[in-house]
């Protein structure tokens, strides 16, 4: 039970876009299901460090596509548990070191398949052990979170911690107020947030900061009109969104911008129809999967973010997604 996260095998791209744009749901389902069968490719092994994220991206995409049974549930749970370490944290795959990013993916997967009790199985230490691992990564002085024992701090990890802890109903295990004040310190005059205090605003970091504030119930701290304006300026003439001023548009940034706009109730500040077209144009119509931009190689990461974006835009036939 493990999906390859590298570039997909490509289908035809004529350099020209089909007039009728459809979401090729069945193709995407097959593409995702096929990812686990590619062990004869070097790429499969070279992306092992993304395995658990890959499962989360694939699984979520399948759920949104209305195929919650698209991956075998028991094998998924077994694989997640095989990534857990003694200290409660999860690695990207068996034998990979524990890290916040994969611990969050693990909890998200288990929550998606309603299997959080699997953590309580013999000798695992239950959810309490995972909560302790996450809480242990918070800095007492800044309130920020490290990715692992080696101590790299990033607002991505803060959001991850909040996300996993709220799924485990254990947000109280960390100093929420201190973490919130750290996010405030990362705010810029343009309404956005950077990776650390003083860093430039960046859509990915904005998503993590706004997401964490949403979980903490502190969206009142967001300068919504200003942030909304900055985020809406990410949309370029082809409908796609970029991550920072004067950068290229990309499906993954489209999701981070879109979900941030949704959290501050300003989803209508961009042209949803044009963004929908942009995402559909990034599909591999023949073999399934979605790329960063039209004509590029697909991967499960962009497939997930593309489908998630379409879902948030209310695309017919997709299950609704929670922006946080």
């Amino acid at each position, binding site marked *: 039970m493990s999906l390859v996260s590298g570039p997909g095998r490509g289908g035809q791209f004529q350099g020209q876009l089909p007039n009728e744009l459809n979401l090729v749901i069945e193709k995407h389902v097959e593409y995702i299901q096929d990812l686990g069968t590619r062990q004869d490719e070097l790429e499969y092994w070279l992306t092992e460090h993304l395995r658990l994220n890959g499962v989360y991206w694939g699984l979520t995409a399948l759920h949104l596509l209305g195929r919650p049974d698209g991956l075998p549930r028991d094998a998924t749970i077994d694989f997640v548990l095989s990534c857990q370490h003694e200290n409660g944290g999860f690695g990207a795959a068996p034998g990979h070191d524990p890290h916040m990013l994969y611990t969050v993916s693990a909890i998200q997967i288990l929550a998606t398949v309603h299997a959080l009790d699997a953590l309580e199985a013999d000798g695992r230490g239950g959810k309490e052990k995972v909560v302790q691992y996450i809480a242990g990564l918070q800095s007492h002085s800044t309130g920020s979170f490290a990715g692992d024992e080696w101590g790299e701090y990033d607002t991505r990890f803060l959001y991850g911690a909040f996300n996993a802890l709220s799924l485990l109903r254990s947000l109280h295990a960390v100093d929420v107020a201190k973490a919130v004040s750290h996010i405030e310190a990362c705010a810029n005059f343009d309404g956005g947030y950077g990776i650390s205090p003083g860093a430039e605003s960046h859509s990915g970091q904005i998503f993590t900061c706004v997401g964490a504030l949403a979980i903490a119930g502190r969206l009142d701290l967001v300068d919504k009109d200003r942030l909304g304006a900055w985020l809406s300026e990410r949309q370029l003439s082809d409908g796609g969104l970029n991550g920072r001023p004067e*950068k290229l548009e990309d499906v993954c940034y489209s999701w981070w911008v879109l979900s941030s706009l949704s959290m501050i109730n300003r989803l209508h500040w961009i042209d949803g129809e044009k963004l929908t077209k942009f995402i559909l144009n990034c599909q591999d119509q023949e073999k399934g999967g979605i790329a960063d931009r039209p004509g590029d190689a697909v991967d499960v990461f962009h497939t997930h973010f593309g489908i998630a974006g379409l879902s948030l835009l209310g695309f017919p036939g997709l299950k609704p997604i929670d922006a946080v």
Partner: protein
Amino acid sequence: MSTHGVPRVSGEPPKSEQDRAKEARKIREYKSLIDAVQNDDLTNETLTLTSRLLTWNPEYYSIWNVRRRIVCHLLKEMTTSTQAEGPSTYRSDTSTEALSDLISNDLKFQLPLLRKFPKCYWIWNYRLWLLEGPSGTLPKTNQQRLWEQELSLAGKMLSLDSRNFNGWGYRRKVIAALERLSNGSDDHEQWLTESEFEYTTKMINTNLSNFSAWHNRSVLIPRLLNERRADRQARKKMLEEELELLQRALWAGDNDSSLWFYHQNLMCTFDPQYAARSMAPDLSHHERQTYVKAEIEKVHEMLEGAEDCKWIYQSLIQLNMLHKNLSGDTCHAIGQIIQWVETLNKIDPLRSGRWNDLLQKLRPQ
């Protein structure tokens, strides 16, 4: 972390038997290298194996951790072997040299990887860990030399890609480390804010459309003024210089969003809601009003011949709203503002939801 900018290969021919055998061989080679690295021997030999594996795949974060554990172990060995020689709290010359070599070889090993994978977080993280952790036990002058090399590395990375997010972040961390080192002991404080400020000027002169440089500038200026113990006049002087620099840039590129975001940033100086964190927090109400008025005139002038530039209208709207708030004049220019918003609705239809919201707010109920 994922695939970006890799063209989709269309109609790939099926792999030949030979290609498949070759790929299978590569996979075996890769997997046996992983097995060899995870042998629990914290030795120089294993360190070399991790180098081979990370050159192949620098995203394999657990292998960077193996490397960390080996470096820590070797470091401990050096310390204990030195202590055996005699009771001293300082490292002997030989031990310093050995550690120095270990660290500088490791830093050198990463250089080609950084060039090839400039966006790989794990390499940057490992590098910082090495410099902040293990190298922290070296004499101060050695540490300083290492960090200075890093500053020129950050400069090189940014000259290759002037918007590299990791590059700018790394640069800020290097500067902080250098300042920490020089301000640790004596009371003569030394900051690098001035030279960093000059660096952003240099970057902007190379390419006006560098939002990262403008952003860094906005963070540096308040610090710089505090370090200079700038009074009101000096702050106003700096503010006026920035306004002028930006004005010149805007005339050159009125469609450049980076410049308009910096403009918005500078205008915060006149907005009571934001002014406290700005470069001139103590302007009087009257001064703020005067500046805003002058700015409205300057931006308005730009409109001629650039009637399709959405940024000018957006700026005019924001400035006039600010002026309205400062002057307390509720009906000031409201009709004109509404007209500008309606123009935006036409020339910037992607964001019509935003313009309609604004219209609703502006129009009397």
